[in-house]
């Protein structure tokens, strides 16, 4: 198992190098000169020269790249061109907010999607199955912004049950923090819940016709045990893998949801940085996100192996 993880990590290294080159190159190819933006209206040549020197923009590109990578490896992702704060600090400040949002969305999606998928698989062809599928399809097709706005209008404005926006750090007041984030998490998690429901349903349908499920029934086990132990345990593998992979996408998808509910997370940081051509921040964010994706991929692979006795031993 350990050797598998090590091997898998070694494979991840070239991927990360490739991504870093890509991120760096993209940066250089994009139109718009950040220095000009920073130098202000006067465009004083001395200031421009000074800024170019300060951010080492006169070095040859490979040198610039290696400097950037070297710094990144030591945790120095540069300084925000706008706020002069270290990029890493900015990210470290915002990332936990988004991770909390994505985690809550994931918990919600799992808690709804998996039971609904199991149920509609067992009740295949019945009204319950039909309703679950219609709801899932709606969950997939309703745009997040519309759902978010409707929720705000209904739950916050009309019923005044939950706040429409804001953020309370988790370590300050966990209960309140969760409460404030319920609506954004719900909005972010709906599509995922629908996806998980459909995957669970199809995985369960396959497994339920298998010979070993028939064997489990032949032993005289209760239907509950047959489904939740023998069938679900085998349907679980694709579900866990999918969830790990989709968690990365949740973080990306959080950008819009955070805008709707004005959650001060990663999404807001991304949007601000892009609009302000704050290249160092954009670079840092892309890099961190990419590494996060790779980590989730690795996690998915490890989970897959852990859940498969056939792969576990070797």
């Amino acid at each position, binding site marked *: 198992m350990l050797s598998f993880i090590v091997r898998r990590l070694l494979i991840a290294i070239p991927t990360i190098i490739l991504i870093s080159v890509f991120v760096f190159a993209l940066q250089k190819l994009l139109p718009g000169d950040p220095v000009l933006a920073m130098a202000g209206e006067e465009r004083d040549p001395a200031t421009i020269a000074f800024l170019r020197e300060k951010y080492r923009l006169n070095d040859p590109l490979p040198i610039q790249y290696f400097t950037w990578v070297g710094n990144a490896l030591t945790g120095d992702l540069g300084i925000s061109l706008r706020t002069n704060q270290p990029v890493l600090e900015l990210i470290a400040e915002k990332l936990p907010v988004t991770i909390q949002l994505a985690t809550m969305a994931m918990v919600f999606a799992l808690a709804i999607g998996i039971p609904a998928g199991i149920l509609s698989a067992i009740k295949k062809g019945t009204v319950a199955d039909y309703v679950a599928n219609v709801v899932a399809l709606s969950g997939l097709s309703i745009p997040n912004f519309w759902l978010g706005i409707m929720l705000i209008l209904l739950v916050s404005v009309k019923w005044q049950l939950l706040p429409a926006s804001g953020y309370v750090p988790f370590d300050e007041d966990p209960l309140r923090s969760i409460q404030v984030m319920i609506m954004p998490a719900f909005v972010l998690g709906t599509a995922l819940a629908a996806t998980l429901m459909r995957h669970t349903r199809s995985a369960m349908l396959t497994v339920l016709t298998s010979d070993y499920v*028939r064997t*489990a*029934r*032949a*032993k*005289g*086990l209760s239907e509950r045990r047959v489904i939740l132990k023998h069938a679900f345990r*085998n349907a679980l593998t694709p579900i866990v893998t999918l969830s790990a992979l989709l968690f990365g996408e949740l973080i990306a998808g959080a950008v819009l949801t955070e805008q709707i509910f004005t959650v001060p997370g990663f999404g807001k940081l991304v949007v601000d940085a892009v609009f302000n051509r704050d290249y160092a921040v954009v670079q840092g964010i892309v890099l961190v996100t990419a590494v996060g994706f790779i980590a989730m991929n690795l996690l998915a692979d490890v989970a897959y192996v852990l859940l498969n*006795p056939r792969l576990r031993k070797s």
Partner: protein
Amino acid sequence: MKRGLDGGEEACSFNQSTNGLTLAQNSLSSASTPLLEVRALSLGFGPSRTELLKGVRYAVNAGQTLCIVGESGCGKSVSSLAIMGLLPKGAARITEADIRFRGEPYDLSDPAALRRHRGADIAIIFQEPMTSLNPAFRVGDQIAEAVTAHNDVSDAQARDRAIEMLRRVGIPAPEARMNEYPHQLSGGMRQRVMIAMALANDPALLIADEPTTALDVTIQSQILDLIRNLQAETGMGTIMITHDLGVVAEIADTVAVMYAGTIVEAGPVERIFNDPQHPYTIGLMSSMPKLTGPRERLATVPGTVPTTDTMPPGCRFSTRCPFARPICAETPPDHALGDGHRALCHFAPLNQRLERA
């Protein structure tokens, strides 16, 4: 009342136990209450109005082996799965089910009752050992689970029972094998595990649905011997589904010949082999070179089995029968031919009636 009478006679004729009359009476009385008696079982799938199984009828006695033979697709598996309550939910329409188990009514429409029987006093093993075990769990746990499903025992006791069962089915080093996963075992070993699981609760009846078909020839006879030995040890009744007439000759006490969802002929094994009365059975027997010769698959009777859509009215074999007459479009009677030998044919017994027809 009958039992009391027999018991009394047995007690007072204890010193005459070699008395032929007493012995005959005892065997008669046990024969009159078979372990499992399927008096009539009919069912259909989907929208087709023709039933796939039509009036299936057979019986098996405790300690004996009934072999069900018939071409692939004739409904052997479906009938045994129906009896176990293991057909896919909602798939089958059971139109007729008159079944007795140990003389008691056995209700196919009562899922809870079926579940109490399953794996407890009626067990089944399947044709596909490679896929019949759950790949996610250790084989020992899968056997132990069968024990705890029907008995109020501790996990340790169930585990001990699992080890004991693995030893009984001839798996070496059972303590170590317990902890292995199905993929670590060969097909033969997996079928042994299936047998261990099926017999863990000492069932009165074992249904073995072509248990060796998927295995290597060398392993096949080992598994059959194992089942036979375990049957001798435990005195369970066995329904062996097979299309290997060599196997039938070797292990059957009674035989039921199935054709297109009906039992066309049934009886003691010698009668079926030496004096077959249904044209289909005769075709099967002539397609088999010798009792002791190489084992042959069935299906050498010319023609193809009708499907539920092409099923002829009356006798289902009439489309392939060399003796078919117009009367065969009517439902054939179930002729009793003595000694429990029956044939579902207008002309049975053939030698007497065919000449007249």
